[in-house]
């Protein structure tokens, strides 16, 4: 092999091999960056996307060739795979970073105190705020959580602890799967139709929005909670039974506490999943200009719906509404990030200390 020919001095040992140094791999990377830059030179102006893509591809090829020559076949393939996997990640991360960047850049135009304390009542110019939409989002998602967590958790307990292997459990499971796939607008129309039947045509309310979100949230809660309950080792259940602990008490005092960290994380993630829903809230909760604290009476604005309307009906000049839309989107992203952080912290605090 080429390898052994190139290092006669090290030939004696069968377990040492030539390795690329950091400087050498760095040089390959630098070369790839230059190749990427060259690719847009002919057209004149910098083209980031082309630069990065061409750079990544030439890095993959370059590192493979260099490593193959210096380190041998196995190391070369290893480096190639590592480069491909890392590049794939970089390609995926690019739009995400770009999206965050755009939202922050445009959202900060109206990220002022008044934006959080004002509503849209009587606003025609550049002022106005999202106080009413934050209240609406909190109420609607809060109600949806209050409704879907008990339903979802009890269903999950049934599936994981009681119904195991029964026909009913299998039927429920496939129903939950189907529910997971329901398009959100269908959930919205369902809730709308339901409340129309009860309260007459054209009714919009926070509770209708909450019901729509519940339809979307419950299957997610069921799935994640069931998964977490199944992760609890059976030995713990048996240990409790062997002490003469009844089944329901075993579930409440042993199984749930062991799984609680994961269950809470799942619930928070499902909240994050529905808090940005627009379509179902558009049909069910609608839009109001001011604060509405009563979910049972009248329209209630939520952040996504607010964002939508500010963008499609921005006013004059359009930048007024558009700035508010971007700022509201930024707030939504921040809320979701806070939720994720809370989930992280909760799960590390509540995680049983020594679960194997």
């Amino acid at each position, binding site marked *: 092999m080429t390898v052994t020919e190139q290092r006669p001095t090290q030939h004696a040992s069968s377990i040492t091999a030539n390795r690329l140094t950091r400087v050498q791999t760095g040089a390959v990377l630098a070369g790839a960056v230059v190749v990427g830059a060259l690719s847009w030179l002919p057209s004149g102006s910098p083209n980031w996307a082309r630069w990065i893509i061409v750079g990544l591809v030439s890095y993959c090829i370059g590192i493979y060739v260099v490593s193959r020559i210096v380190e041998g076949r196995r190391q070369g393939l290893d480096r190639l795979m590592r480069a491909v996997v890392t590049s794939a990640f970089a390609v995926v991360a690019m739009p995400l970073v770009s999206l965050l960047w755009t939202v922050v850049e445009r959202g900060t135009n109206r990220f002022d105190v008044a934006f959080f304390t004002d509503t849209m009542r009587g606003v025609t110019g550049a002022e106005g705020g999202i106080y009413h939409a934050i209240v609406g989002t909190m109420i609607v998602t809060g109600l949806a959580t209050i409704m879907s967590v008990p339903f979802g958790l009890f269903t999950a307990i049934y599936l994981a602890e009681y119904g*195991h*292997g029964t026909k009913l459990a299998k039927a429920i499971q496939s129903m939950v799967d189907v529910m997971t796939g329901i398009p959100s607008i269908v959930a919205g129309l369902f809730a709308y139709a339901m409340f129309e039947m009860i309260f007459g045509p054209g009714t919009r309310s926070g509770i209708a929005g909450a019901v729509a979100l519940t339809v979307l949230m419950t299957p997610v809660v069921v799935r994640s909670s069931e998964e977490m309950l199944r992760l609890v*080792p059976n*030995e*713990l*259940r*048996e*240990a*409790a*039974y*062997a*002490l*003469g*602990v*009844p089944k329901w*008490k*075993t579930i409440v*005092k*042993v199984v749930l*506490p*062991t799984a609680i960290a994961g269950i809470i994380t799942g619930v928070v993630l499902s909240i994050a999943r529905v808090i940005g829903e627009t379509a179902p809230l558009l049909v069910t909760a609608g839009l109001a200009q001011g604060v509405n604290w009563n979910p049972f009476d009248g329209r209630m604005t939520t952040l996504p719906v607010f964002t939508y309307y500010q963008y499609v009906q921005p006013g004059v000049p359009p930048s007024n509404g558009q700035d508010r839309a971007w700022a509201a989107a930024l707030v939504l992203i921040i809320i979701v990030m806070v939720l994720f952080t809370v989930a992280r912290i909760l799960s590390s605090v509540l995680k*049983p*200390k*020594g*679960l*194997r």
Partner: protein
Amino acid sequence: MTESVDTPISDVAVAALDAEIGLGNRIVVENLNIYYGDFLAVRDVNMVIEPRSVTALIGPSGCGKSTFIRSLNRMHEVIDGARVEGSVYVDGEDLYGPGVDPVAVRRKVGMVFQRPNPFPTMSIADNVLAGKRLNSRRINKSEAEDLVEKSLRGANLWEEVKDRLDKPGSGLSGGQQQRLCIARAIAVEPEILLMDEPCSALDPISTLAIEQLMNELKSTYTIVIVTHNMQQAARVSSRTAFFTIDGTGQPGYVVEMDDTDVMFSNPKQQSTIDYVTGRFG
């Protein structure tokens, strides 16, 4: 099947009498067939387990020792489709009789498992108290402290953990965890203690500690232990039952049961000789 009981009814009667006069809880097993769904895992066990002594169950893997021992406190039926035919008498009462509450049975017949399984969400003290607390008995603080100390002393663990009772039980070593599980089991004051290979996940030192513990516990409890280790059976038990199996898919059964020294010095059955001398499996 040499040990099959000639007049089972009288055994039951004797056991009931023994229990009444405080001689402890003899277990009488009659014609026990144990199933997983349609699969007969253990067939036709007849056995008398003497009170206040250690009885060892030995035999090759898969012959149904775990299955059998779990049927002695109705833990077998927590597995989907698992069922039992026959009778197990404790104090002359059939555990599988009509109207018997398995939860009540398990409070009377405790169990220690192969892998130590302390509750990961609970401290050492809470683990010991788990049985009492979860059985919805409210106990006050000083009672609780006494019970924790008594049970941990009973399991020879008190000195090692008395300064960290509020730390998670899963922070202990494997051997300590297993003794914690024994403490947890004896805290509910069972009359019978079942142990399914309690030492197989432990190092020799911890194993020794548990064997010593069994020697102390046998004055209070009727102990049944499954073990893969024949030296261990010889060291700790006074009676030994040998289980075997004729082939995969066949039910396991009891070949013979006798005093432990007889079983290891001059058993009646050839297959027992083969097994205890290591010529088998």
